[in-house]
């Protein structure tokens, strides 16, 4: 077997010869027909070139056959490539030794087509069928029938990440997929899906639940990089230290195939590592609010036309930070109607100096997730504050310069920070 594999690997080296020589032969035949300035090479030379080309094709085919015993390649695709290669070798022998009557352009054409096809499928075997279009623009991809990768939705919150699909799979895709995919299965191992990983490869199972040392997948990536069994091989970029630690954590937690991170108890340092690998800011604060759907762009436009400055609280968050910046405008029923249309989504609301009145405070009833509210420098009195009594997430209420002249009783002042200096009072200069 080793003998076969040793020589078989030279197929990859030698196949360039028939490609070059046969292409040259075809060119030498066709060019004179196209341009009168080019002389047809002598028949003896043409014959010699075809013969050398044919021999090299046969040798390459034989070596290829020997290489196929390595088991590194997917059955179907391998067969296609093999038969095309054998056909190519036979037809080129025919052309080289077939004599004068077979000296027609048709056979050359067949050789060319067979060579292109064999070469293409051979390339697919080593680099995967998506190699050439990987970085092509999307329209090109679609027109060629390749699927435009619709990736998983972006993770903005550590707890909502799926332990396998968002954490482990991307890592394997990045560093292992090139050699361990359904088309090219080095070591008969496919690492592109959870099921495939569980199937294992040539040497058996690659992961064992809660058993780090027994998991070949882990062992291979933690070997000495000089070791020939180290993965990834061939000087390819290895997994980062963080990624390896996360893989270890995944194995220790029983190698789950799915499940939200929220279900696991994760220590602080591991949280940091996970955030880092997921591209989240390690210190990202999270809103203690129930999940919501994101709003459409149209809603944003509607709000902006009404005079609000609207931004999501953070990229990808369904919650909003809204300010009414009065410039020639004041709060009115129409304006408040538009605003209450998105009531659920509003977390920070700035209505300072907006002409807000007690009568409009009723609109704030359906704003359950309000955390910060600025009503400063408006004619608001205690009446209006009743609508805020049930806001259980409210943290900051700014009543500076309003008519509220004492601590509002209906609000839980232990939880809500209230800034209050009424219009009648003057703050103590020394305070």
């Amino acid at each position, binding site marked *: 077997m080793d003998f076969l594999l040793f020589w078989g690997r030279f197929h990859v080296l030698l196949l360039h010869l028939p490609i070059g020589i046969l292409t040259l032969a075809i060119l030498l035949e066709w060019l004179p027909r196209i341009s009168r300035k080019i002389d047809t090479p002598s028949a003896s030379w043409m014959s010699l070139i075809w013969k050398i080309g044919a021999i090299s094709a046969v040798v390459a085919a034989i070596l290829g056959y020997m290489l196929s015993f390595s088991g590194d390649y997917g059955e179907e695709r391998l067969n296609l490539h093999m038969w095309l290669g054998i056909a190519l070798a036979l037809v080129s022998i025919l052309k080289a030794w077939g004599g004068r009557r077979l000296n027609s352009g048709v056979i050359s054409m067949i050789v060319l087509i067979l060579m292109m096809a064999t070469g293409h499928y051979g390339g697919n075997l080593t680099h995967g069928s998506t190699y050439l279009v990987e970085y092509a623009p999307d329209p090109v991809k679609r027109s060629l029938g390749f699927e435009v990768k619709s990736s998983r939705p972006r993770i903005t919150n550590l707890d909502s990440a799926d332990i396998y699909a968002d954490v482990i799979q991307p890592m394997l895709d990045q560093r292992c997929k090139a050699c361990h995919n359904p088309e090219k299965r080095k070591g008969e191992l496919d690492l592109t899906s959870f099921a495939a990983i569980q199937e294992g490869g040539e040497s058996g199972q690659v992961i064992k639940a809660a058993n780090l040392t027994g998991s070949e997948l882990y062992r291979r990536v933690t070997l000495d990089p000089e070791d020939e069994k180290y993965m990834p091989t061939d000087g390819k970029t290895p997994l980062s230290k963080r990624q390896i630690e996360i893989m270890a954590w995944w194995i220790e937690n029983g190698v789950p195939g799915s499940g939200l991170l929220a279900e696991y108890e994760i220590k602080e340092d591991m949280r940091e590592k996970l955030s880092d690998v997921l591209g989240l800011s390690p210190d990202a*604060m999270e809103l203690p609010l129930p999940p919501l759907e994101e709003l459409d762009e149209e809603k944003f436009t509607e709000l902006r036309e009404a005079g609000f400055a609207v931004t999501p609280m953070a990229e990808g968050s369904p919650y909003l930070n809204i300010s009414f910046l009065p410039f020639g405008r004041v709060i009115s029923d129409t304006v408040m109607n538009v605003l209450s249309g998105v009531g659920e989504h509003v977390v920070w609301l700035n209505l300072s100096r907006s002409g807000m009145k007690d009568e409009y405070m009723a609109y704030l009833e359906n704003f359950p997730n309000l955390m910060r509210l600025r009503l400063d420098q408006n004619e608001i009195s205690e009446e209006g504050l009743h609508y805020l009594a049930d806001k259980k997430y409210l943290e900051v209420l700014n009543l500076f310069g309003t008519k509220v002249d004492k601590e509002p009783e209906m609000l839980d002042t232990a939880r809500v920070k209230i800034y209050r200096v009424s219009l009648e009072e003057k703050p103590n200069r020394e305070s």
Partner: protein
Amino acid sequence: MNLFDEAWARHQSYLSRRHFLKGSALGLGAIALGSLMGCEAGNKNELDTSNPLQPVAPHFLPRAKNIIFLHMAGAPSQLELFDYKPVLEKYNGKDCPPELLEGKRFAFIQGVPKMLGPQYNFAQYGETGSWVSDRLPHFQSVVDDVTFLKAMHTDEFNHAPAQLFMHTGSPRQGRPSMGSWVIYGLGSENANLPGFIVLVSGNSNPSAGKSVWGSGFLPSLYQGVQFRSKGDPVLFVSDPDGMPRDLRKGAIKTINEINRLQYNEVGDPEIISRIAQYEMAFKMQTSVPEAMDINKEPEYIKDMYGIEPGKVSFANNCLLARRMIERGVRFVQLYHRGWDHHGSNEFEALEGGFLRRCDEIDQAMTALVKDLKQRGLLEETLVVWGGEFGRTPMWENRGGKTAPFKGRDHHSEAFTMWLTGGGVKTGMTYGETDEIGYYGVNDRIHIHDLQATLLHCLGLNHEHLTYPFQGRDFRLTDVHGKVVEDILV
């Protein structure tokens, strides 16, 4: 002709004009194909002409929405304001020990200078017991609200490079300033005022000039707009006598239409800046006079700040800064120049000019902090105060001769800044210098770390706020900077 000459002549005959033009024709066609196929600079910011500074979501939850940066240009002496070094007092007048001089470069010190003890009395204030000198009597009352960073350090010891370093992340010109990066990343909520406003006091612009609020390689839309504190806030923003507003509006509309047509043809983002600035200028004609009118403030506010109407003053600028923040301006920067106390003359003396400078800022900056706090604006606004570097524990001896007045040279290894507001812990001192205030020994913060932290408070990941230029992505902190999480809430 011999063979070589003939070969040369033949060779030359293939370099005729004709051949050049023939070759170029293909080249030009290729360039045209390139632009047809849409090979643009690929910058992520698709500028929307109607409101290019439209506020945008931050990368993650922000702690603050606005920043006020009080920059004391010239570098105030931390040893006379916040960093109390009683041990230095013992060395007063003695020669500087050689280990502090060996292998170091100073801006002006030569040979062996004498040590200079703290010139003013320090005491502890507030519940936190923070040290403040007697030069800042008002500020003593707000020490519990601020966090001091006592071990700041920088790489530059000259004004212009150090100021550029502080504000743009590089000591050389050409990079966008912090305010530009911030409004590039977040936009600004008030569409009628510039998103990044600069006010200057203390006689002249800082040493580094207007580059410290420039937009560098970002579209010039993001540059800081300097408002003048005296007279017309923005020159020529008012209409000439007799011109009705409608006419002005119509003119601008037409100019912008023409500019837009040009943009559709050429695609230069500077055209968008131009369009936006015309429209902004028009809106500023009404918004700016209103925002800048500090006379409308109630008397007690005016007294609190100690404003001087009709003059250029730091106090006026502080009050204006607060008004800008109220109106949703994202980034306000105040420069107060004149802190370069080398001791070469009375103006630059710790016992002379320094006293006046302290008076100028003490009441005003305290009032700013208190006013923002009482209005609840400190929840969302981050206030930063500091210079571009510190001052040496040694008495400056320019040219080998001790300065005639008390003064210190530039010092990059240790200086003090303070922060308060959105996201920053209060009543804390972070960082410590050695017993004579020469080096930082604990919790040192580099300028890039400060920049990363400020961006972090606004909800921006300093590593992800980038802009492609000259073939690579740049960011404010370039390849440095680590967020100082210990000072954040």
